[in-house]
């Protein structure tokens, strides 16, 4: 999936949306903040595999603290740990945040349609969780 064409024109944007598959459209229509939460959960689960028990407990508390009515425990359970290539992509994006505590540049790269779709390709559990979200949204379960 490519990013939206720039500069923005209504025609160009509409053509871009038309070129996307149904799954890609699901990703596009999810707010970037949620895209980042999905990435963060996959990262934390990777950390759970590689850290000592004290750190594991902290990570578990943190990822469980992310759940709410928009990001349900079921979605959390669906997301699988980040693999090595995903982690390498994550580190590349984070390298843009040197000295920036807000991490905005890294956030924008990771949640951009193209890079997020790479992460979805590498970790299909992200798309499964997104579909759970979409289903809950359709049923009116999300706020």
């Amino acid at each position, binding site marked *: *999936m*490519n*990013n939206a*064409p720039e500069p923005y024109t209504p025609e160009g944007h509409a053509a871009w949306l038309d070129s996307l598959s149904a799954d890609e459209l699901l990703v596009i229509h999810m707010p970037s903040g949620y895209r980042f939460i999905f990435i963060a959960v996959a990262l934390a689960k990777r950390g759970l595999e590689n850290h000592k028990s004290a750190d594991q407990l902290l990570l578990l508390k943190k990822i469980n603290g992310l759940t709410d009515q928009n990001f349900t425990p079921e979605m959390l359970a669906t997301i699988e740990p980040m693999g090595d*290539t995903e982690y*390498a*992509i994550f580190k*590349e*994006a984070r*390298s*843009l945040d040197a*000295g*920036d505590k807000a991490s*905005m*540049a890294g956030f924008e*790269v990771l949640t951009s349609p*193209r*890079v997020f*779709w*790479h992460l979805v*390709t*590498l970790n299909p559990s992200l798309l499964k969780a997104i579909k759970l979200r979409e289903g809950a949204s359709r049923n009116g379960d999300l706020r």
Partner: protein
Amino acid sequence: MAALSEKRRAFVIAMFDPDAPQEGRGLLKFAAIRAGYGSPTSSDNSIRVMASRLAHDPRIQAAAAEYAQAHIRALAPNAVRAVRDAIADPRHKDHIRATAMVLDRVDPLETTHTVRVEDHRPPSIEVTQKVLDRIEELMRRAGLAPKAPVIDGDFKVLEEAKG
């Protein structure tokens, strides 16, 4: 100083005369009279007005600053002598202060400043593009080469060269 007339120059020099009263106690009037301004019949008031005008002239002020600087430099040998005397006499009331002052200049106290420079500028477009290129390379290496981004552009079909 050299740009002033002789009379004005004399006014400036008179302001630094050892016999001159302090400022606010007739210094300007003293300097004006010493420089030859006014006449024996001039009233006290007219001399004061004249002196005040002279003192507010920017050229006189610049010359006074130049003369003061030169005067202070000329006082340096006396200052050195006074410090040397204070150091030489252990009973001198400023003996310790003078000694410490010289030591501070010979072996200055070290002051360490820690300066932390934080750069909050967003990364440039070129740096961001390099990161995006490396991400694409990671995807290629993983055997998941995605479609290349579509690049918009105009093209022209060229005729095949003859002969």
